[in-house]
């Protein structure tokens, strides 16, 4: 208590009127002295002697006043305050230096903090569930790669695994909401009844699912997302208990899920899984479409749970080798299962932006060192007046700290905007984007980065500020030892900048080449001028396949008459679009395969003109014709992709062979499909432009109608007019049909490169900033060097050197400086670009083209940066230079 009080009064003492306090003290001391003299006199001592004795005993006024002064305030703080005031004054006197430094640091700190906010939100922050670290993702494994889980496997795990307090499964589909305004396609998840409990999520209003609601006979219930609740239902709490129409079925809303409920991500409505007996039977081991999340119980660790699940997988392999051969299982923390494939790239980006910050530090440090030259006489004067080396170092550091703090503050403001921009340009499949925000940890990071920055660029000036021979400095500011080594340090800083810039340019160059390579990949179709949208599940009034076909034919007919439209047709799922389900199939006359070794293909229902519309070429045989309609399932015609032909008919002609699929797909429960192969068409890229080429089989839509499909339109009318025409045609036909995912094929192609594109944009931005800063750095050092060597240049010119030779000399110096940086940078880049290898396609991390162009760019930049100083050197007036 008394200590606090003391501190408070000492802080108050710092701001009190010091002169008044001193005067009062002096009066008090004088009174003391007078009383002592009077006492001495009273004891019979002569007045002069009495005064002398009293003075001797006092120990001196000045010392006492100083000691009391120190006690009055907080001397350390006061000298810091003085430093700050002085530094601020000094910085105001050189506004150009201050402005450039603050701006450079603001950009560096702002960019770094913004990237950190993404890294923090996506990778570091726990998921928004209670005890989120106990949540695990369970996946099946085949040949070391993860697979979705089948319903029977999930059922086994749920019943027999001992490591979890709850195991929950789910999958995402779409659903069509009707009954209020235009039909809308929604992203729907079907989850186990315990999903909300396993995650620990409580609905905003209403309730979670209860046990038994995922039974096949339970009434249909749904939980809607908070976003849906607010946008579609106006946050009306009476929604709970009301029925909405999903896919034509009345479904009772029982609750509203908070925005924290993100399993699975981007879902509008949750329904329950309703596994039939058949879904859970052995026959369904091969259909894998579930993701599984589980909460560890208190007795288990992730690794013990992993062993648990592995042994279960071993067991089912031994019991049912036909379906489970080589199928393992794995437990991973839920968070890492979500973000594993963005972890490395995001850390690479953080590293890259860290390089930008380092370059910014080097630049500001170099500026500060250069400024030492101009302050030589000031520093010498202060040293002469008794400032110690450490006192001057402290002063220098204070200046750096102020510059860094102002830069850091501006940087945080910048980071705020930059983070918003990042979220806006990030590809939508980047996980956890909604968790990215500027929070306490991000601000703390920014502050830490600021302090580190101040240390990094402030240390060199602090070291050199107090060195050097005082006499030499006072006599002539030129050529002192401190200054020479300061100049050498500046060169070292610039070399570092160039090296770092090389690394960033190399990384950006490699990604740029990757995107170019991907653009060169033939996707198997012609994307230009093709537009697509999808039709969510058709209303129940189109119950028969004939009715479906009739509707589709009417729609296509009208679409083909829209001005500009040259072709239009339907297909079940599109190329480069996540990929539809895989079908196993049998080739007639061959023995059955087993388990995962069964032939598999993407099966598509496609209209007759689909191939012409998409620009997929026919390789051999024939395409579908009008005659390919009707018939019984299993006896139609089939087109296969070149890849399927090569894979499953390596030594024979597939045309004329008959194949049969294992199931009928959505809308054909209990059916199998198949037919005679009549032709081979070109391959399309299904998952991504790099790889993702899967065997395909196509069946005519007229033989295999499906109730949700994509419409593809080749049109020269542009996106807006094509889609608005399509929208009005649909509304005209039936307003309960939902049109969604209206996109051009070009957009789909671009989106397939979305993440790489995002990384490329950022890395290129960093590389450009780095190049710019490094160029400024080279310019600064060269300009300073020329200024220093004016006399020498003058002598050279007098002794017969030509101006051209002086010009070449300075340019040569600049080039020499950059050669060192480029060499170091190339070595570093050689080692570091390996980190990018997961993102590259068609180029090796040590790509020769990149590693040739990048140094060339930097040499060009260095020469460019040296040009002005060089021409200034060549223009030196020898007479004037020697005299000065």
């Amino acid at each position: 208590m008394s200590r606090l009080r003391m501190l408070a009064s000492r802080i108050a003492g710092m701001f009190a009127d010091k002169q008044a306090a001193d005067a009062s003290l002096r009066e008090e001391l004088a009174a003391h002295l007078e009383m002592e003299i009077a006492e001495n006199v009273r004891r019979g001592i002569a007045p002069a002697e009495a005064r002398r004795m009293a003075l001797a005993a006092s120990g001196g006024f000045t010392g006492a006043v100083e000691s009391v002064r120190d006690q009055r305030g907080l001397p350390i703080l006061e000298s810091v305050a003085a430093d700050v005031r002085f530094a601020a004054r000094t910085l105001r006197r050189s506004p150009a230096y201050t402005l450039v430094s603050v701006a450079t640091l603001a950009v560096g700190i702002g960019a770094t903090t913004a990237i950190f906010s993404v890294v923090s939100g996506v990778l570091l922050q726990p998921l928004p569930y209670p005890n989120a670290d106990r949540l695990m993702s369970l996946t099946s494994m085949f040949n070391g790669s993860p697979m979705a889980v089948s319903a029977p496997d999930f059922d086994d795990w749920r019943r027999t695994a001992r490591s979890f307090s709850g195991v929950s499964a789910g999958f995402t589909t779409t659903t069509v909401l009707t009954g209020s305004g235009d039909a809308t396609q929604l992203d729907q998840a079907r989850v186990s009844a315990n999903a909300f409990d396993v995650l620990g999520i409580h609905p905003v209003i209403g309730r979670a699912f209860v046990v038994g609601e995922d039974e096949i006979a339970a009434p249909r219930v749904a939980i809607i997302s908070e976003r849906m609740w607010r946008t579609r239902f106006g946050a009306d709490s009476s929604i709970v208990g009301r029925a909405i129409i999903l896919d034509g079925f009345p479904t009772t809303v029982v609750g509203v899920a908070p925005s924290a409920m993100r399993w699975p991500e981007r879902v509008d409505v949750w329904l329950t899984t309703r596994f039939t007996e058949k879904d859970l039977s052995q026959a369904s081991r091969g259909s894998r479409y579930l993701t599984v999340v589980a909460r560890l119980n208190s007795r288990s660790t992730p690794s013990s749970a992993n062993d648990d699940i592995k042994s279960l997988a071993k067991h089912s392999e031994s019991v049912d080798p036909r379906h489970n051969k080589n199928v393992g299982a794995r437990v991973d923390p839920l968070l890492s299962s979500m973000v594993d494939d963005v972890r490395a790239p995001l850390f690479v980006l953080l590293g890259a932006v860290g390089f930008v910050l380092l370059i910014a530090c080097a630049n500001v440090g170099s500026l500060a060192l250069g400024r030492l030259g101009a302050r030589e006489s000031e520093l010498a004067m202060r040293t002469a007046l008794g400032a110690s080396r450490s006192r001057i170092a402290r002063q220098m550091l204070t200046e750096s700290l102020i510059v860094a703090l102002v830069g850091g503050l501006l940087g945080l403001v910048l980071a705020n905007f930059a983070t918003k921009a990042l979220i806006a340009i990030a590809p939508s499949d980047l996980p956890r984007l909604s968790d990215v925000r500027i929070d306490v940890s991000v601000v703390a990071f920014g502050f830490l980065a600021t302090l580190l920055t101040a240390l990094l660029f402030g240390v060199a000036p602090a070291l050199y500020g107090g060195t050097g021979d005082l006499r030499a400095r006072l006599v002539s500011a030129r050529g002192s030892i401190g200054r020479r080594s300061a100049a050498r340090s500046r060169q070292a800083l610039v070399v570092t900048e160039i090296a770092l810039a090389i690394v960033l340019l190399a990384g950006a160059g490699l990604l740029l080449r990757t995107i170019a390579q991907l653009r060169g990949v033939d996707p198997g179709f012609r994307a230009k001028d093709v537009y697509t949208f999808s039709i969510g599940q058709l209303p129940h009034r189109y119950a028969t396949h004939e009715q479906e076909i009739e509707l589709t034919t009417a729609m296509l007919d009208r679409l083909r008459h829209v001005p500009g439209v040259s072709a239009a047709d339907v297909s079940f799922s599109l190329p480069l679009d996540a990929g539809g389900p895989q079908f196993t199939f049998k080739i007639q006359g061959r023995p059955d395969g087993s388990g995962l070794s069964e032939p598999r293909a993407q099966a598509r229902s496609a209209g007759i003109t689909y191939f012409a519309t998409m620009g997929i070429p026919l390789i051999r045989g024939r395409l579908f014709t009008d005659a390919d309609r009707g018939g019984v399932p299993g006896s139609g015609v089939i087109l296969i992709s070149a890849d399927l032909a090569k894979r499953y008919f390596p030594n024979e002609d597939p045309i004329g062979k008959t194949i049969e699929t294992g199931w009928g797909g959505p809308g054909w429960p209990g059916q199998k499909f198949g037919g005679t192969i009549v032709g081979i068409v070109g391959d399309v890229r299904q998952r991504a432009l790099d790889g993702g080429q899967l065997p395909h089989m196509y069946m005519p839509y007229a033989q295999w109608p499906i109730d949700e499909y994509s419409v593809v339109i080749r049109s020269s009318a542009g996106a807006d007019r094509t889609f608005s025409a399509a929208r009005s045609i649909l509304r005209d036909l039936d307003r309960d049909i939902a049109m969604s995912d209206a996109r051009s094929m070009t957009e789909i192609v671009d989106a397939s490169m979305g993440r790489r594109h995002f990384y490329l944009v950022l890395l290129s931005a960093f590389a450009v900033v780095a190049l710019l800063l490094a160029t400024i750095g080279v310019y600064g050092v060269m300009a300073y060097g020329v200024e220093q060597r004016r006399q020498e240049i003058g002598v050279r010119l007098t002794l017969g050197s030509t101006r051209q030779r002086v010009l070449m000399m300075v340019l040569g110096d600049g080039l020499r400086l950059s050669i060192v940086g480029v060499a170091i940078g190339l070595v570093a880049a050689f080692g570091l670009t390996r980190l990018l290898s997961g993102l590259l396609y068609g180029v090796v991390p040590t790509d020769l083209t990149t590693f040739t162009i990048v140094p060339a760019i930097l040499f060009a930049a260095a020469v460019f940066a040296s040009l002005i100083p060089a021409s200034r050197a060549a223009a030196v007036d020898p007479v004037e230079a020697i005299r000065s």
Partner: protein
Amino acid sequence: MATIQQGTLALMILTTLEGLGPLHGYGIARRIEETSKNRLVLNYGTLYPALLKLEQAGFIKAEWSVSENNRRAKFYALTAAGRRQLAREKKEWNETADLLASFLSLRPEGT
């Protein structure tokens, strides 16, 4: 001449003020010197920072007034907090002194 520890000087000042009531700096110095039989001599640089410190801690308060021989002087007086602090410190010192005394009075065994 004995050197004074910071804490002990504070205690001496507080005791002096407790015994004599409000007193100016000179009076306090005199009194401490007398009590110590001139083994302690307080110069200004020792006394006044100590007084300020006690004042900042809230143990004493200062006020300008007129001395016995009509001189303007700053008088220091004990506050309630100061009295409590003095009692506390006295107790601690007495206990310490007691403890030390019993150790110092130990005789070597066997004599």
